[in-house]
């Protein structure tokens, strides 16, 4: 997101909250989100892909809505109105290719109109087929979730992304030899996919509230949180959306203050630190231990300020149009232990994995070997092992969410190990309270030491996160140790 885009979004949100109320607010948020989806999409070297990727996000969202929509819902009229609006918008964006110099909201010229129309007809036909023949079918929910995960894995795994890029290039008549895994820069897909997975899973368990197409698309593609989250929950989001809202001066100030804080964090602090933050190029060039630590600290703070800044901006813009997006960070580097860190770092992602992976997995492991066996006779796994398996699985998956590489696996494993050690220590210290607990000064010192240790544990983990290979990471670790 550039400063210009940010200014436009801020002004649009302010207008939306101040002038357009009630009925129009929902529609305008939908239109704003759709336009932002195309406008924010980065350019890609594959012809027309910067039009097709946002269109694919939109198509996926609409299809997931049709799949999660309760079969008994009588919403034909609003659905048709929303569907028509979405179709008209996509066609309008496609038509900008004929506008000459005024072209286009997308980074490059959209494809020919017939191609756009064919794509729209295919999506509409699929949506109609789901509504007509398979509304709310469990197998379809599971299949859709699997398809989204498969797509996610393809994008995040270099060889698959490379093959996909080569295929797309060949399809568009471009040379496949130029293909790169970086070609598939799909704006916000990591976040959109997880919102859609959340909707599919909650529909399976019956927790997803009925949502109109307009509400669902606005939720999944809400423009402030497209680029860097947070991953809101549909039931929470829609509550804000349905609430009557008129922006007060105090709320406007809150929102604007948050945006200014975010801009300062992202564009002043984080972008400044980026010049000296650890990366694949400077890691190999750094010759001194002291400066290697400086680069690592710079990376740690840059990452936090960059991500935290974007979150502030998203929350601020959301607030201006009456949506209180969830917090994603809560002073994570000041936490006394790793568990507290993970309750305050990328909170919505951690909560997502807790809800949809850790909790179900540990529940399943606790009730092993079989739920058919009476509880008294069950011989579940030892609690420590359950915790370990749950944490290791969760953290490695969180690592893989960032990219399917060994470095992200190592990063996840590092945090899993830290969380497990802390979990065991917490259990032990509950039974054997440490002596410093009784002395306020000692306790303060221990807490300070905890903050310092936790920060450095996390910072060392960033070595894997920041670098492209295990060998380079090892080189940096040796450098940090003075070797």
């Amino acid at each position: 997101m550039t400063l210009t885009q940010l200014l436009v979004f801020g002004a649009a949100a302010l207008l939306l909250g101040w002038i357009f109320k009630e009925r129009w607010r929902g529609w305008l948020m939908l239109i704003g989100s759709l336009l932002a989806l195309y406008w924010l999409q980065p350019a890609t070297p594959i012809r027309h892909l910067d039009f097709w990727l946002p269109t694919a996000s939109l198509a996926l969202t609409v299809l997931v809505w049709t799949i999660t929509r309760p079969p008994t819902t009588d919403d034909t009229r609003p659905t048709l109105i929303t569907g028509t609006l979405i179709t008209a918008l996509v066609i309008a964006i496609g038509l900008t290719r004929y506008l000459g110099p005024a072209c286009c909201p997308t980074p490059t010229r959209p494809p020919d109109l017939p191609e756009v129309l064919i794509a729209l007809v295919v999506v509409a036909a699929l949506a109609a087929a789901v509504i007509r023949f398979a509304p709310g079918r469990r197998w379809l929910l599971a299949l859709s979730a699997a398809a989204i995960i498969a797509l996610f894995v393809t994008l995040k795994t270099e060889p698959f992304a490379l093959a996909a890029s080569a295929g797309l290039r060949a399809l568009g008549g471009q040379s496949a030899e130029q293909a790169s895994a970086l070609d598939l820069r799909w704006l916000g897909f990591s976040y959109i996919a997880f919102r859609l997975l959340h909707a599919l899973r909650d529909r399976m368990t019956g927790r997803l509230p009925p949502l109109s197409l307009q509400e669902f698309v606005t939720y999944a593609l809400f423009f402030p949180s497209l680029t860097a989250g947070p991953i809101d929950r549909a039931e929470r989001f829609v509550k804000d959306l349905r609430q009557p809202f008129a922006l007060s001066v105090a709320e406007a100030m809150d929102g604007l203050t948050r945006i200014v804080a975010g801009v300062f964090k992202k564009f002043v602090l984080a972008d400044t630190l980026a010049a000296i933050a650890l990366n694949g190029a400077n890691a190999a060039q750094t010759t001194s231990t002291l400066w290697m630590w400086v680069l690592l600290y710079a990376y740690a703070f840059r990452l936090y300020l960059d991500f935290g800044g974007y979150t502030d901006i998203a929350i601020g813009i959301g607030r201006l149009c009456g949506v209180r997006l969830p917090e994603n960070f809560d002073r994570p580097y000041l936490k006394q232990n790793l568990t507290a860190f993970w309750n305050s770092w990328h909170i919505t992602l951690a909560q997502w994995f807790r809800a949809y992976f850790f909790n179900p997995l540990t529940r399943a492991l606790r009730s092993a070997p079989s739920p058919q066996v009476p509880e008294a006779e069950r011989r579940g796994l030892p609690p420590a092992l359950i915790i370990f398996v749950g944490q290791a699985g969760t953290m490695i998956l969180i690592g893989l969410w960032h990219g399917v590489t060994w470095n992200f696996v190592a990063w996840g494993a590092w945090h899993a190990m830290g969380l497990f050690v802390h979990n065991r220590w917490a259990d032990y210290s509950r039974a054997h309270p440490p002596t410093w607990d009784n002395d306020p000064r000692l306790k303060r010192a221990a807490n300070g030491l905890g903050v310092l240790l936790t920060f450095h544990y996390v910072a060392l983990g960033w070595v894997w996160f920041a670098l492209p290979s295990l060998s380079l990471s090892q080189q940096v670790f040796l450098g940090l140790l003075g070797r």
Partner: protein
Amino acid sequence: MERKVDLRFIGNVIFRALLLFAAANLLFTLGDPLPALGRASAYNLIFPGRQRLPYGEDPDRSYNLSLFTLEAMFASHAVSAPKPVGEYRVLLIGDSSVWGTLLKPADTLAGKINAGNYTTRAGRKVRAHNLGYPIMSLAKDLLLLKTAMRYQPDMIVWLVTLESFPYDKQLFPPLVQHNPGPMQSLISNYPLRFDPNDPSFVKESFWDRTLIGRRRALADLLRLQLYGVMWAATGIDQDYPEKYERRQEDFDVDYSFHDLQPPHLTAADLAFDILDAGHAVAGSVPVLVVNEPMFISRGKNSDIRYNFFYPRWAYDDYHRLLAERAEARGWHTLDLGDVIEGGEFTNSAVHLTPKGSAQLGALVGPAILELANGGE
């Protein structure tokens, strides 16, 4: 008590903020603190001083940048650290061949001279400081020399080549154009053949001197400090590409040299007045003028051109004119135009390999020592 946030309150806040902003801009414009800010530097304090002046087009790879605030450029250089007792300070000025394009700091001419561990007869250790800057212009050299005189030099070594001499090259460098004050003062104080009001000089309006107008220069100062971390961490201050295009060996039939015509150059065609001014600026500090090595082609049409820069007629005339001028003025000179083998030039007819640079250092070092011992 918490203040009620209403439109009046917001209006007040905005009004005061604007007032403060305007006042800050006005104060900044009147005070012009850029040079003072440029002198405030973490180099030689937290980071080691740079071995050459900051210059770079690709900061992400070179951890370096080009800026125009002379004070900041010099403050980031090791030369601005206090002069150690017993140091015989030699300042090298010149173009990219002195600055050391494609060369690591230790492989530049300054690095090679320092590696030679020369000691004067009086027991002072010769320490060469690289003040080259990668643009060919004697006016630019003079501007840097004038600033460098603050740093207690014992000798100036000025490496020159014909390409730095034509008048159309003099006010061309952005560094010169963005420092109109010091340059105009040189033009006024020395008999230089330039108009102090030449349109090449950047004329700053009131708005250009405000905080807003100076935002780029201020950001550059900050970036220079920031890249100090990377300089300290890596010792890298330029991009070293794995592959580069080699200097040209074959040429078309081309006799041209700037807008000057064969068969002969005259002294009036070349900016010898700047060399005169340089000697005057140096005052009692000895100046050694070195005609720097150049690539001599043996390729196609090498009977017409020595290299990419020079047709033979122009260079031969320059060579003669420089010798005549030096003799007339009693300058100390060293003619090294043809001493380095063609294989030791890299991507330009004046850029040397580390080996070529070592050969040059082995010639310049003793000449410095000889001149130093003669004066001590």
